[in-house]
């Protein structure tokens, strides 16, 4: 019997041939912790009596969820992380450098075929680069820094084949929202997902990252994209030359195979307060919005900013709407500056904040008022997510968010696109 990508990666990292369902202890190649989870991991590492961090050069600690610190509590947790990174010589990503997942990929820590854990549920984003990456808790991050390993149950794999050709104005975010609506919040719990098909091959690395990012919203453990020229190109740009990726065998055992033709897919939107509460935009009421948010580990990449700016150019954000833009990293921010995108956002009336996670997780920089409606490119719309449990969060693509900011109500971007 052949193997899935996950079975191959876990076999390579546990030193024996394994299959779905096996419990293994596997070596981890790279690790990530952010300011919401790393402080607890540091405390656990100390409780363990850790003297050195195994594979320290491949450990990245990121100050992003509440950065720059809005209060003394956060400032002290950031100091704890800085001191730890210096003492144990791990990598550190300072405030404003970017959202953890984007920085991790830009620093070349996510490589095809590797096994990665991160103390953040959206660690699955790195699957865009053909690796197995999954979220863990702080104790597990600490344990892996202490031992270099972690125990895993090798997951069963579901294959999702996306065929057809996307309509203009429809993007990766609409695809993954559609899939979350189809499978629901627990539809793929414990499973790994392998993506294939014409649409996936057409997508940029930014688009693939958007999809891999949100597989956890269906409960999945990992979402893995194929290795191709686009993977090579992304890595080449950051100075890494890799010619081979990991593929599943033809006779591998998948627990299910789903094929979708998305040629007729229209922009999708997740209504409050659940990510799987997804509808095509044509069936959704034109609710007035007060805040529009473009950014996050889901949709703060260059392609997202370009799409939004192209739509916004020469227009104004509607009266009564605040639009907040947070590029996912400093690298993206600088490129957006060069391309004139930031000027378009500012001229249209948007606020551009530093790269980070603040508005999405409700720590600062965009907390809504009671009863307000927010349309956001983020991945979660739980009640209270943005810091106020009396607000209503709608999730959509960068184009839909931008069109809505211009109209002042939930709007279909196709109205602006011929």
């Amino acid at each position, binding site marked *: 019997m052949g193997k899935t990508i996950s079975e191959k990666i876990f076999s390579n990292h546990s030193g024996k041939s394994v299959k779905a369902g096996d419990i293994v202890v596997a070596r981890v190649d790279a690790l990530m912790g952010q300011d919401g989870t790393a402080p607890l991991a540091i405390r656990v590492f100390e409780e363990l009596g850790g003297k050195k961090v195994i594979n320290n050069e491949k450990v990245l600690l990121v100050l992003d*969820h509440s950065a720059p610190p809005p209060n003394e509590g956060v400032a002290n947790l950031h100091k704890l992380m800085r001191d730890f990174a210096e003492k144990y010589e791990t990598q550190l990503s300072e405030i404003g450098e970017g959202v953890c997942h984007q920085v991790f990929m830009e620093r070349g820590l996510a490589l095809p075929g590797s096994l990665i854990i991160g103390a953040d549920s959206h660690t699955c984003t790195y699957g865009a680069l053909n690796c197995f990456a999954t979220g863990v808790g702080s104790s597990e991050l600490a344990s892996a820094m202490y031992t270099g390993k972690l125990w895993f149950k090798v997951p069963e794999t579901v294959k999702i084949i996306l065929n057809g050709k996307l309509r203009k104005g429809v993007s990766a975010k609409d695809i993954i929202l559609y899939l979350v609506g189809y499978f629901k919040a627990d539809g793929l719990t414990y499973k790994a997902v392998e993506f294939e098909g014409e649409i996936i091959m057409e997508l940029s690395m930014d688009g693939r990252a958007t999809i891999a990012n949100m597989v956890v919203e269906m409960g999945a453990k990992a979402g893995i994209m194929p290795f191709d020229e686009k993977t090579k190109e992304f890595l080449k740009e950051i100075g890494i030359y890799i010619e081979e990726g990991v593929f599943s065998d033809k006779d591998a055992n998948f627990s299910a195979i789903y094929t979708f033709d998305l040629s007729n897919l229209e922009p999708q939107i997740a209504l409050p307060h659940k990510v799987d509460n997804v509808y095509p935009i044509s069936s959704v009421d034109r609710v007035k919005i007060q805040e529009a948010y473009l950014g996050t580990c889901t949709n703060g990449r260059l392609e997202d900013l370009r799409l939004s700016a192209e739509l916004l150019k020469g227009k104004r954000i509607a009266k009564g709407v605040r639009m907040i833009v947070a590029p996912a990293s400093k690298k993206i921010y600088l490129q957006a500056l060069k391309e004139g995108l930031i000027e378009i956002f500012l001229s249209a009336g948007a606020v551009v904040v530093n790269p980070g996670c603040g508005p999405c997780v409700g720590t600062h920089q965009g907390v809504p008022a009671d009863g307000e409606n927010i349309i956001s490119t983020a991945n979660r719309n739980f009640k209270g997510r943005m810091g106020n449990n009396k607000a209503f969060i709608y999730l959509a693509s960068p184009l839909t968010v931008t069109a809505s900011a211009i109209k002042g109500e939930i709007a279909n971007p196709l109205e602006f696109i011929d």
Partner: protein
Amino acid sequence: MIFEGKAHKFGDDINTDYIISGKYKFKSLDFREMAKHLLEDIYPNFYEKITPGDILVAGKNFGCGSSREQAPLVIKHAGIGAVLAKSFARIFFRNSINVGLPVLECNTDLIDDGDLIYINLINSEIFNKTKNLKIEIFSPLPEIMVRILKEGGLVEYLKKEGDFKL
């Protein structure tokens, strides 16, 4: 590894943002303080209703969302003895075992709010004393999780074993 307590019943898809809101978890590592905010976005003042040893009972996909280990820690510090649900999101499930909070997948349709629940982790037995009903466990914990739980959590397990042992 025997627990007995009153059930507090919740629905499906209770996410970790509801268990402890992001606005608290980023500020500190003071779990006794955070415990006061347990599930407050969907059940204000829930913390005050808990008697130590009570059992949290839910539907499917409990603990979905963020990987925050603060979620099971806050549940534990609020005095909850164990969590029962039809299914759990995987990161929450692992985090709970790692912090020494017992979690089991079972048929929670047979439990109502306020029922007295008996759990024996050694025999994998759950009993609803109020209804005089045996509750079916859907899937027993893998051996490594039982061992971690018996030691009281991952830190204690690793201190004892020095490494992961299968």
